[in-house]
């Protein structure tokens, strides 16, 4: 098993509350993604055994949602909102700035596997634009100075 005992336990606890087993699919995928940073076919099979839902139903649901990618990404996943409220306040230039700073294009991962940069749809931070989400955390009202500081902190922690 690639899923840890802790993840399996968490999946069991979360899914037990639902009236039907199949409702456990999204909670299970979420737990798996948190552990691994990806969820692929092998994991669908593991989840299938844990929550006792056919593999195909898990694959069917998982491939619909953007938050369960099949391949892992850099240690820090940087998601920049490119939607209208953020775009009006310079999201496109924020993406270019990050591309320059990281030396990669949108959609790519740095050679040291530290950062992956992607742009995404509205993250509900419209009145605090522009923004980016790094792993689980939102960084809002971004300026060049703030971006520099955030990247520096992450590099030093890595």
């Amino acid at each position, binding site marked *: 098993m690639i899923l840890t005992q802790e993840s399996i336990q968490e999946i069991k606890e979360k899914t037990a*509350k*639902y*009236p*039907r087993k*199949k*409702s*456990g*699919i*999204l*909670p299970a*995928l*979420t737990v798996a993604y948190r552990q691994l940073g990806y969820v692929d076919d092998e994991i669908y099979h593991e989840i299938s055994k844990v929550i006792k*839902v056919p593999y195909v*139903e898990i694959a*069917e*649901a*998982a491939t*619909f*949602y*953007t*938050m*369960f990618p099949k391949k892992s990404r850099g240690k820090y996943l940087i998601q920049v909102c*490119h*939607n*209208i*409220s953020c*775009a*009006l*306040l*310079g*999201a*496109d*230039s*924020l993406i270019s*700035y990050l591309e320059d700073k990281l030396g990669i294009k949108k959609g790519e991962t740095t050679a040291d596997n530290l950062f992956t940069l992607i742009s995404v*749809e*509205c*993250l*509900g*931070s*419209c*009145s*605090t*634009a*522009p923004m980016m*989400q790094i792993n*689980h*955390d*939102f960084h*809002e*009202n*971004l*300026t*060049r100075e703030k971006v520099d500081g955030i990247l520096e902190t992450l590099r030093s922690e890595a």
Partner: protein
Amino acid sequence: MFYSPVITNAAEVASHKDLHLFKYVEDPKQHEIGTYQAHGGYKAWKKVLNGMTADQVTEEVKKSGLRGRGGAGFPTGMKWGFVPKASPKPRYLCCNADESEPGTCKDRVLMERDPHGVIEGMAIAAYAIGCHLMFIYIRGEFNHCRERMEQAMNEAYQHGHLGKNIHGSGYDLEMIVHTGGGAYICGEETALLNSVEGERGMSRMRPPFPAIEGLYACPTIVNNVESLASVPHIINRGADWYGSLGTEKSKGTKIFSLSGHVKRPGNYEVEMGFNLKKLIYDPAYGNGMLEDKKLKGVIPGGASTPFLTPDMIDVGLDYESLQTVGSMLGSGAVIVFNEDACIVWVIKKLIHFFRHESCGKCTPCREGTSWLEQMINRIESGEGQPGDIEKIEDVCGNILGRTICPLGDAAVMPIQSAIKHWRDEWQYHIDQKQCMVKTNFDFK
């Protein structure tokens, strides 16, 4: 500390006799149950449990005039009333916290800063429809909201506000915090129900409506976070009080998420019918246009609502008034842009969103949004062809009203209004192969 640094008008709300949703959102401890209760929290829940029947609760909410704050504006109490009384099936309540309509960031503040207010509203709604298991569907990206809601839920159980035989009433109520997987469409109620069931988030045909056959084919009510957060206040202060706020047909207060080219973007709770121009220019709210540039347009209710031009903004923010100027209140997301924004560029951003978020179930929406994006990108990159505008209008006409859920309509309405208001700019883009105004927004 607060997770979101968003500006609110909590100070104004606290000193105002009628505004209520944002009263304590600047209190850094409001998310803790002790503080929430010290501020009168769970009083409405106890009042309901200790002396109101389910019908009385529904009647009170009906009488208050509260309408859905997620976008559709359907009367909340009336929706509850559709749950069949004789049905032997279990009933479910789902709080829709899949906030993803571009421009909208209000439910996030309520969940992060006043999560018990949401739970109390959910509990009262659950009681009104005879539900013993309620869900909150939080969009997957809102990790902090999930943490806050789970923490608040656990506290609510510990204090006996949830669980078995709540406060000795004999009423049982359980709660599940469910997170999504990153799909705007799951904010549409039937797609949300599919998603809770472990399916792909695709809309269902109606009828049957969820109130009759929803989650697990049982009677289900889906209400927005802000709608439910309003309910405890209605129970505490009465339907007559709530009904005295707002306009004749749009009652109560509403949170508006103001974003884009204003000096003071933020979340502001105001009475329904509040003047849009005032929201943008008053120092207490938007404080005018960023860098004092000229206003070009406003999207008044989130990315799916038609645009307003500067001559149209002296209008009340309520369901009816916005209809008279050809737009909609939607989710209350007011997006403001200045004259440096090329309208084709604005639409390019919006159509990309809708094409990406179309679930793919209905052909007109799946294919149509893709064609629209290709044509709009073509125009924007200077490769537009004569007849493109008419072709876009034709495709729009073939999507509008021809899909199971409103996502198709949502994609089309802003485009149609952008062509209506700024047709010369579209034509210029095609003829001159460039923007009439150079859009180049830089971040600080």
